[in-house]
């Protein structure tokens, strides 16, 4: 009798010990998450403390300068915006079209397999390799030079897999009954796609596009590799102004700089005053990319809640 009681005690102790491991691992998991949180807080806090004093209207409207307290990010944010325009104009039509083709049209054959393998692999190619591709192909092969167009095309190719994958996932979530209904009414494949599949997958595609653009706006390496300048003290010509009037698309061939390059330039200078500028530019950059990511997450969250097929 006493022996059984001792045994039960031992078993209970064993169970308690095992449960302690559960608790311990839960704590460890929280701790690991906290490392991420703390890093983020430190990163954001350090930049805010360093850079907040530099964030003023002038910072956004001044060109870069040799004097740190007069330097601003005007040419950088204008450059980033224009490059993003070209990137979106490249990646969105191509990516959505490719996604539609792979999901709705593609026959099961080796060509489709080849395309799918390529999309997967391209997502894993380091971004600097895209820079080398652009350097060899766009800058010297096509003679586009170190222009906004080259940078936009490069980043467009870089985020193409993101847009394709998001488009495919959004389309795949649409039930087959929608297609069958459209076909039953005599719609052709393209009518079904354009009038039903595309509108219903729009929110999902948008999420992917925003995430892709957020990534493109922070990309530095490929843009440096194509030879973007770090010191630009002028803006691309505004269409139809000036003398003689600039053409509608003259700005795409203009030299440029972008936000991350401006930040890189300031970070790699030895003077502490420039580091403050770098912190301020980083703050702008982080707020931009994070708000884009947050928007994408919010759209996806709404989407998950609202759509019930």
């Amino acid at each position, binding site marked *: 009798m006493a022996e059984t009681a001792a045994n039960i005690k031992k078993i209970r102790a064993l169970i308690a010990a095992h449960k302690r491991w559960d608790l311990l691992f839960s704590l460890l998991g929280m701790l690991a998450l906290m490392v991420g949180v703390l890093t983020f807080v430190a990163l954001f806090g350090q930049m805010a403390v360093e850079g907040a004093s530099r964030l003023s209207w002038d910072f956004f409207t001044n060109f870069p300068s040799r004097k740190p307290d007069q330097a601003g990010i005007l040419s950088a944010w204008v450059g980033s915006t224009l490059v993003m325009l070209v990137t979106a104009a490249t990646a969105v039509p191509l990516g959505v079209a490719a996604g539609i083709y792979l999901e709705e049209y593609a026959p099961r054959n080796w060509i489709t397999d080849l395309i799918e393998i390529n999309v997967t692999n391209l997502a894993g190619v380091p971004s600097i390799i895209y820079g080398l591709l652009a350097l060899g192909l766009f800058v010297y092969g096509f003679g586009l030079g170190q222009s906004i167009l080259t940078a936009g095309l490069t980043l467009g190719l870089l985020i193409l897999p993101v847009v394709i994958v998001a488009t495919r996932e959004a389309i795949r979530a649409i039930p087959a009954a929608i297609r069958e209904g459209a076909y039953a009414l005599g719609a052709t494949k393209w009518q079904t796609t354009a009038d039903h599949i595309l509108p219903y997958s729009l929110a999902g595609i948008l999420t992917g596009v925003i995430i892709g653009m957020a990534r493109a706006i922070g990309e530095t390496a490929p843009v440096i590799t194509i030879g973007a300048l770090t010191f630009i003290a002028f803006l691309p010509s505004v269409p139809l102004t000036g003398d003689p009037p600039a053409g509608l698309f003259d700005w795409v061939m203009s030299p440029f700089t972008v936000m991350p390059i401006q930040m890189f330039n300031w970070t790699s200078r030895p003077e502490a005053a420039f580091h403050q500028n770098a912190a301020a530019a*980083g703050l702008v950059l982080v707020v931009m990319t994070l708000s884009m990511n947050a928007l994408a997450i919010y759209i996806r969250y709404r989407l998950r809640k609202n759509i019930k097929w």
Partner: protein
Amino acid sequence: MNSIPQAHRIYAVTENFVSDRLARRRLRHGKERVIEFVLFLAACVSVATTIGIVVILLKESFIFFQQVSLWDFLTDTQWTPLFADAHYGILPLLSGTLVSSAVALLVAIPLGTIIAIYLSEFAPFSVREVAKPFLEMLGGVPTIVYGYFALLFVTPLLQKIFPGLPGFNLLSAGMVMGIMIIPYVSSVSEDAMRAVPMALREGSYAMGATRFQTATRVVTPAAFSGIAAAYILGISRAVGETMILAVAAGMQPNLTWNPMEPAATITAYIVQVALGDLPHGSLAYQTIFAAGLALALVTLFFNVLGHMLRKRFRQAY
């Protein structure tokens, strides 16, 4: 007399009607075919990009290897293409790349795995709902910002612990890179663990196993192929990462296995040359394509390895 033209007319109308519809259908089909072809071309852009990368890297490296022998490239222990006494040995760049990646993985793999197990098996729903988007955002921070953070926050912090640490070093760059990679490792691992069927967990619980035992001895082995794929993804991210290293690790090629030293990586070297204004076509300029080819081959190696691991350990449920 009258009925023949009447019938004729009806016939003509029907014929007209039918041929009209047929014509429209043909037009419709023609349009459909054109649209399909245009969509197909868009899908082919990804293939064209791959071909473009391979052709450009091989073509430009070929020019380089006409003047520098492959043997020198692989065995010379100095990389000084910009000096008068030029040496073209990839080893110093490779060592910098491998050491920084190793430091990053020492941070990212344990933390990423623990986070993945925690989120998949332990965390309550509310924690997961907050943690997942947060991790996604951590992965969305531009790498140049991480570079700034490594150089101006982590390095000074580390210098308090290791007083002799130089201002540029692989350690702080690697550690920050590791934090950056955590979301990639954790999200792919977690997806793999959540794909493990519930029945396996239920079986384990039914045998009296605790959560921890179920997570480490049932779910993790069952999801191993996916977790391995996540690690490989992390490795190729680390190897290809550029800006953190260009900013925080210095750009001096240095054949070392010590993370406390400054060193250049393959990617940092490419950035360094692109920042300078070397004339297009000079041998020093071609070196970046040879370095790029080496980088592409290293990442290709890891991608193929990941693919094979996944195939080898795939378990079908």
